[in-house]
């Protein structure tokens, strides 16, 4: 659990860093007329990644939403309500410890679980598509639980 959290934060930090070269100056937005507001464009992919969380994680062979996952999806639902013009895709992913075809089905199950939760929280199903990549698009490479736990996810991305 500890490893998983560290891995997640590291990935989020990495993604935020890539998406925004001057993210560190964004903390002081709106405090002075001379300072231009900076940080991710509201409603953008970078905004979703940096301020909401674009992904939820699953236990091995599971598609049940943990309390952490639900908390992230609650924030995603609020974010989607705030930016009604945004369409998203939810991609289900798996770690290496399943066969190709089983993982394709499992990834779809995870994507659908996230999708259905967001619908239940008020997001219109017409704004969201789902896809499964099975184990073909790992976030982290290598082996071991700290890697695998990052790759068992459902990632929401702006289309």
């Amino acid at each position, binding site marked *: 659990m500890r490893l998983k959290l560290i891995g997640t934060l590291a990935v989020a930090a990495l993604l935020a860093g890539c998406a925004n070269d001057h993210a560190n100056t964004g903390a002081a937005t709106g405090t002075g007329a001379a300072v231009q507001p900076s940080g991710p464009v509201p409603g953008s992919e970078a905004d979703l990644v940096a301020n909401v969380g674009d992904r939820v994680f699953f236990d091995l062979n599971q598609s049940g939403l943990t309390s952490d996952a639900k908390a992230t999806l609650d924030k995603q639902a609020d974010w989607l309500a705030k930016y009604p013009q945004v369409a998203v895709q939810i991609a289900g992913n798996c770690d290496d410890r*399943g*066969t190709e*075809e*089983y993982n*394709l089905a499992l990834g779809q199950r995870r994507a659908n679980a996230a999708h259905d939760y967001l619908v239940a929280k008020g997001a219109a199903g017409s704004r969201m598509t789902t896809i499964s990549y099975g184990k073909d698009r790992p976030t982290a490479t290598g082996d071991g639980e700290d890697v695998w736990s990052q790759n068992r996810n459902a990632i929401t991305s702006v289309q």
Partner: protein
Amino acid sequence: MTMSSTHDSFISDRQAEALADTFGPQGLGRRSVLGGGVLLGAGLAGGLTATPWGALAADAPAAEITVDQARTAPIPIVIPSFGPGIGEQITGVLTDDLTNTGLFKVIPASSNSGTPDFAPYKAMGAHAAVSGAASGSGTVRVEFRLWDVLTSQQIQGTAYTTSAANWRRIAHIIGDVIYQRMLGEKGYFDTRVGFISRSGSIHSPRMRLAVMDQDGANYRVLSSSQTKLPSFNPVRDQIAFLSYGTAVPRIYIFDLASGRQHILGDFNGVPLGPHYSPDGNTIIVPVARGSGSELYAVNIATGAKRQLTSSGGAINVSPSFSPDGSQIVFNSDRGGSPALYIMSASGGGVRRLSYGQGNYGDSVWSPRGDLIGFTRISGGQFSLGVMNPDGTGERIMTQGYTVESPTFCPNGRVLAFCRRTGGENGSARIHTIDITGFHERAVPTPEGASSPTWSPLNV
């Protein structure tokens, strides 16, 4: 397992069967073709003609050796050079084919197209000897004879005439004739493997449909779009696969002769991998919807769909027919964790097959009918195994970070599978292995390779 071999033919059983297919069961009989040429490989440029060759009256029985016996004592066989140029190339491919089975011990020899001098071969302990030569350019004629060293008698004699471009197929066909005459079972050298060629970033690999000969030659990429989970039609020259080229994943059927492809219908949900029936007329597709994926049988000609499983949100994948088409083995988590199950081809009478520790998947029925291949994931490691169709006799052949996607060669004696290594720079390669677990070897490919699907014997 022993099968009796026929001893009275100058063309192989396979060639005779190819003729029966061409002319129908009531058409041209085996005897009536012995005097004439046999046209093989109709799909090849220039075609391929096989005619009887050598001392016809002396045709003699092959040695009575079974595959099981040859595994413990490989058959010593003399393979001479077929001459310079294409002849030497044919000798190389033939030698590799026979050696890679682990069932033959090839003894090289200098050129010899006539009757061998048997005394030195006997002294070496050779059981069989080949004589032959390749001649011509553009159109080549390859003469081949197989001899029983112990009796000094000819077992087989055939001359092949074809375009020089087909020299590899000649070598494989000769290898298959030797395999069959020596072991009493059809060979599998003149076959291909469909697979997914992988390149680019490990985080988002390019995955394209590809095909190659079973030994890795004639590698060819067939699609530019993202593809997964190919399945070779067991009777026609076609490969079905899952495409991510469009927003909605779709099943396509790719025709290897024409290079054309077409979509296999629409599904109420997301289709996963296609899986052919033994007669090539039906494709089973798992369709994901909600939390599960149910198996549907699709009639290719009519497009009619029939739902085979109804498991209330469980995953059902990797269906594979028994060779007689009466039963289907598949992979499901309906019991809590992924395991293997068997049901009738119409979807009834489901019963669990695997009870071992860990998760099972990748169920595939041998074309011989005697074994079911599978992947087992336990203790952070993958194992590739086989079991009897009643679930007994489970046997692990090889293990690794991942070893998966097993597919049987047409005679059921060898499996191809994907072996991936873990770590930062993990690779994916197709390997082959004898069903006893011996003779694992990598098939060379220019890029990463996964999801092999073995073709039937080429026609």
